[in-house]
């Protein structure tokens, strides 16, 4: 057994941590949160130049990483700094699906993504699908040389900034069949496609997308008709590894801030950390941190395993991180008292990132049920 990072990943972690410590301060981030676009193009470009996007792709797509542990290293650092730029949506999800299913022409676009010049987003979930991956109501119908899409997509993160959208639609089967789902590469400004955007509570932006007779050439399809589900499930697994690692990083910041506060804040003439009631709570958080770290390692280490093993570890991690994250966020706020309730204090944003991560790709209940189902399989 060896739990050390490889030299390359260690270097990536060091570089990224140094960059974010210098460049992505609370002030810079809070300024980004207040701008209309919800993300900084400048920061995005700089991080792309640093190779952070490339680290999320495998070598055959022009990247130099792309495995579970690469995602874990990058996203833990992003989470630690509370980064709101859309690495997950742009690179892991949309970019990842193009990498998995695209033909040579389609994959050529990934160079632009890796260099930070092109943004993408995945439009998969719909208003009535909650966290179910196989439920797709949006339809795609072939008409001569073209394909016509109709439907609606919900809470598509990064939709407005994306030049290209990866959109799922059903070409065959019942509404919740795994078979029959296809993915299409569609420009955001395609005719019949409307994007209605809004800010997200924990930073960044999302949109509702309506597709009304959106007509695209058959060459816009990613991979084989009706066979996209396995790739979608695989990339959502990768996204869950990423979001678990990101949450772990955010939890580290939350516990660090809380530890510091307990040692410096004085009431009744002594540091509040000297009160046993708070000291024991802090200890519990640190215990949960170790559990959370192991859950992320388990999931990242099994991302390249066979489906059932992979999904079981991913659901286990998402469930554990959901529980531990909520505890860390809530207890960190509580132990800080009022100061953590203020928007300008670092913990406020970090706590929101932690809690709202549960709302992407399934909360701890969803993944508990999934874990049970996968264990019975």
């Amino acid at each position: 057994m060896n739990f050390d990072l490889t030299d390359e990943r260690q270097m990536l972690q060091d570089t990224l941590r140094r960059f974010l410590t210098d460049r992505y301060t609370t002030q810079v981030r809070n300024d980004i949160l207040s701008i209309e676009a919800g993300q900084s193009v400048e920061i995005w470009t700089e991080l792309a130049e640093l190779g952070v996007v490339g680290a999320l792709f495998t070598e055959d797509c022009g990247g130099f990483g792309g495995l579970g542990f690469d995602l874990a290293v990058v996203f833990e650092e992003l989470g630690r700094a509370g980064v709101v730029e859309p690495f997950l949506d742009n690179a892991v999800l949309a970019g990842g699906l193009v990498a998995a299913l695209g033909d040579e022409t389609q994959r050529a676009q990934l160079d632009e993504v890796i260099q930070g010049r092109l943004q993408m987003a995945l439009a998969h979930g719909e208003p009535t699908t909650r966290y179910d991956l196989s439920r797709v109501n949006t339809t795609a119908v072939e008409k001569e040389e073209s394909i016509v899409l109709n439907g609606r997509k919900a809470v598509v993160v990064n939709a407005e900034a994306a030049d290209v959208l990866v959109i799922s639609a059903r070409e065959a089967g019942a509404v919740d069949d795994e078979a029959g789902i296809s993915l299409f590469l569609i420009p955001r400004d395609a005719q019949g496609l409307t994007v209605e955007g809004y800010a997200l509570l924990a930073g960044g932006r999302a949109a509702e997308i309506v597709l009304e007779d959106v007509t695209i050439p058959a060459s816009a399809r990613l991979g084989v008709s009706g066979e996209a589900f396995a790739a979608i499930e695989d990339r959502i697994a990768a996204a869950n590894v990423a979001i678990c690692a990101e949450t772990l990083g955010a939890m580290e910041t939350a516990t660090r801030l809380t530890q510091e506060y307990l040692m410096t804040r004085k009431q009744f003439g002594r540091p509040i950390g000297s009160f046993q009631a708070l000291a024991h709570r802090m200890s519990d958080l640190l215990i949960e941190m170790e559990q959370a770290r192991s859950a992320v390692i388990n999931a990242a280490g099994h991302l390249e395993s066979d489906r059932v093993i992979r999904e079981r570890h991913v659901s286990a991690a998402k469930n554990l991180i959901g529980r531990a994250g909520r505890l860390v966020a809530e207890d960190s706020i509580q132990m800080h008292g009022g100061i953590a309730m203020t928007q300008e204090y670092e913990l406020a944003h970090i706590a929101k990132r932690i809690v709202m991560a549960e709302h992407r790709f399934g909360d701890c209940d969803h993944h508990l049920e999934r874990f049970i189902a996968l264990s019975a399989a």
Partner: protein
Amino acid sequence: MDLSYSDEEIAFRREVRAFLQDKLPPELSGKVRAGKELAKADYEGWHAILNAKGWLAPNWPKAFGGAEWNAVQRHIFEDECALAYAPRIVPFGLSMLGPVLQKFGSKAQQDHWLPRILNGEDWWCQGYSEPGAGSDLASLKCAAVRQGDHYIVNGQKTWTTLGQHANMIFCLVRTDKDAKQQEGISFLLIDMETPGIEVRPIVLLDGSAEVNEVWFTDVRVPVANLVGEENKGWTYAKYLLTHERTNIAGVGFSQAGLAAVKRIAKSEISGGRPLIENPHFAARIAQVEIDLMAMSTTNLRIVSKAAAGQAPGVESSMLKVKGTIIRQQINDLARRAAGVYAMPFASEAVEGTNAPLPDPLAAGPVAKQYFNNRKLSIFGGSNEIQRQIIAKTTLGGAK
């Protein structure tokens, strides 16, 4: 033992309900139900409606223009108001300062200030906490030095709720630096228009602007605005805090919140079925509902005791701890129920769900409320302080 309300109490509940149905403007209850921030005029309008009926000050004696209800009546009133989504009564003048003036104020102070609280001429805010004095309130530093007929006040207060609307603030100030902490504090009434006062808003983590910092630089306050005796302010402050803790359990808020969770879970679709049919989520709802049923009775037991003239002791601390835990659990469930639609930053939206085709902001501010209500276990004496009070009283060392 009889778990039912008396005939008089039932009639009273009916009267309150009919009044709310008749007089509570639907646009106001709509705002409360949707979790929107209320404007100053919303609060003032509701106060005026209650005042016209003589119900604005349920706990005040009739002699001062109050309703003089007993604890059970007050509980029924608060319960019905919460269930009807009435705006909360702004407590600073009515529940906090009013009782203090009635017990410790001079006749002149009572005659001047109490009617103005009822008719809305004054909006009071509370100057208690300071950056360095939170749980350890007695360590406060904001200083008042007497110069002839005035006190000169210098210092800072914080977490001043709705201070942006207030024209008056009641403050705890230090008038004797050398005395024992609790024995050098006085209770002052300060006009917010006085030169040297600055109010700075604090934006909270959910984007709301409900609390403020209040800064005092050489602020001149007439000695006539001292309540009671100099350096006896801690006694009055403690008396005020016992009033702040009425309705501390917030059972009505929890009941309204739980109903909202059920509405969301009924229309949110998971696995093709309403989320409320999901055994796991149904269990979560049931668990909180079971706790709330018991909490409601715990609350009534303590309320009945108070109605019989027994002052609640540690029980109010117990109500605060358990009541706020339950309210926060309900906020957590609402957030969970909304699924992906909890993510938008919905500052002003109606509550709703993912079915059939929702407005993107339809789930409403459930996540915002979840974060905002983290304050419940922090303010009014944090839950750690409440536990300490319970422990001291039961394990010894209590005075």
